[in-house]
């Protein structure tokens, strides 16, 4: 369980995350939605101890992320941010293998090798395994990074806009894999998603943020309502039931 209590983050006079309290239960997929600058990514970074909070605490299974040793936390929680530029030149396989570092500390065992192969296969990267990252398209690279995070084999997986750079097919596949990570492997996945329909079709819970605060949290059915979405995005979004999913229409 991830428990967030009164977390606040300020940059100068701007409060980016404003006394957020939130509980994310184990299992399932939780999507965080909100307009640009609502504080979604910052909150995700605070949960994953990439950014220290100015006030408040975050605990993961009772471990305070600010004080728990990094290597301990790295075996429980994995995070992928949006911008993943690297100055090192790695192949896909080498990148994915880094996911095993918290477990084996740089000396990979035969079991680690198997897990790397599994993660590569799971993300359809077989043919690209020995290509360098800079030779890949943005979408392929994105899959390689998520494969690394999967390879880290943690109970909690935090992904900041994993659909970035992905075309429709790969975006759908990514969300299905995320869904399976939760269903088949029992992981707790927290995503920042821009497209509310992906959030609606693939997540169990949706958290809505606005101006640094969480304004609503609930099941997908509860959250996909025009009144609520209007409050989140300042936009009239019609919600229709199509093929068993609630789809928001906001294009015209």
């Amino acid at each position: 369980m991830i428990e967030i209590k009164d977390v606040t983050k300020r940059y100068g006079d701007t409060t980016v995350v404003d006394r957020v309290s939130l509980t994310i239960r184990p299992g399932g997929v939780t999507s965080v939605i909100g307009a640009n600058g609502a504080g979604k990514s910052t909150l995700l970074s605070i949960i994953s101890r990439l950014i220290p909070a100015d006030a408040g605490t975050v605990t993961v299974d009772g471990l305070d992320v600010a004080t728990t040793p990094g290597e301990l936390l790295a075996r429980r929680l994995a995070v992928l941010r949006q911008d993943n530029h690297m100055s090192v030149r790695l192949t896909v396989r080498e990148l994915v293998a880094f996911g095993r570092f918290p477990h084996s500390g740089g000396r990979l065992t035969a079991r680690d090798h198997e897990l790397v192969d599994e993660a590569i296969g799971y993300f359809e990267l077989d043919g690209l395994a020995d290509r360098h990252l800079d030779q890949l398209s943005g979408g392929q690279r994105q899959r390689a990074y998520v494969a690394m995070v999967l390879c880290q084999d943690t109970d909690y997986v935090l992904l900041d806009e994993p659909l970035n750079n992905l075309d429709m097919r790969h975006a759908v596949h990514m969300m299905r894999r995320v869904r399976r990570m939760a269903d088949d492997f029992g992981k707790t996945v927290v995503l920042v998603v821009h497209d509310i329909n992906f959030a609606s079709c693939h997540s169990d819970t949706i958290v809505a943020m606005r101006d640094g605060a969480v304004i609503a949290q609930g099941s997908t059915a509860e959250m996909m309502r025009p009144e609520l979405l209007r409050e989140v995005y300042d936009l009239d979004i019609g919600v229709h039931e199509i093929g068993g999913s609630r789809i928001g229409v906001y294009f015209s």
Partner: protein
Amino acid sequence: MTAPTGTALAAARRRERRRLAVLALVAVAVVAGFCLVGLTGNWEYAMGIRSRKIATMVAVGVAVACSSVLFQTVTGNRILTPGIMGFDQLFVLVQTLIVFLFGALALSTADPRLLFAGQVTVMVVFAGLLYRWLFGREGRDLYVLVLAGVVFGTLFGSLSSLAARLINPNDFVVLQDSLFASFNQVDPGLLALSAVLVAVMAAWTVRLAHRLDVVALGRDHALNLGVHHASVVNQALVVVAVLVSVSTALVGPLTFLGVLVANLARQLTGSFRHLTLLPAATLISVIVLVGGQLVLERVFTMNTALSVIINFVGGAYFIALLIRESRR
């Protein structure tokens, strides 16, 4: 279908080891060449001098290689080296100030070990202060550090040229002589001390090697993978400060050697692993230094400073690197 990971990674390791072996062979050949070419007269005497030069070059080679690779890893760039931190310039300033305050006699008569210890201390303290100031808060951009280095470098450079203008011409000649890297006039006691320091720092670096691989991915990935990024960076920076101090105080500034060997090591091994990169860079350093000195002594038959040749080759490589980077 591609090979499974176990096989593929093992093949990559073998390839890296083969390349390291080739580099080691070349290094041995160059060292042997340096020892044996043009050997006439008293064997023992000549070998004594030559082996001392080699020992100096190996110590400097390890120091420059490790410090440059570490610096590039923690700053996440492939162009800049500790020189950008203003270290060379601080060394020049310290030397200049000694001459300015005490006269050239002080520089040539003071206990070289004491002088050396003083210079190392000044440089480590300077680096420590700079790092503490810049890394005190977490998440500070590393480029701020680099920028500060440029500013400090310029400041120290200006201060020492001001001081150099104020000292008398005779003193200035002595000063200039001590500022150009030369492997001909290194004190044996100083060399032993440097060798110990370099060995300790190299061992420390090897202990950090796996974590450095992760730190090279960037701060966020390192934290995600459970590496205490700030701690590794701080340790690496202390090692860099000591190593750069040792090599600069030993033979003077070798501005472009670091950028040359760190990048050649990456290019030639194709590896990101520090356990491969560090020995590769060290071997390349030794090849460049010993080879350069050999060419200097046998081909040009003049005892000018080695730094001239290294800065020429390294500088050209640096420019090529910059042009290639900007085309990307």
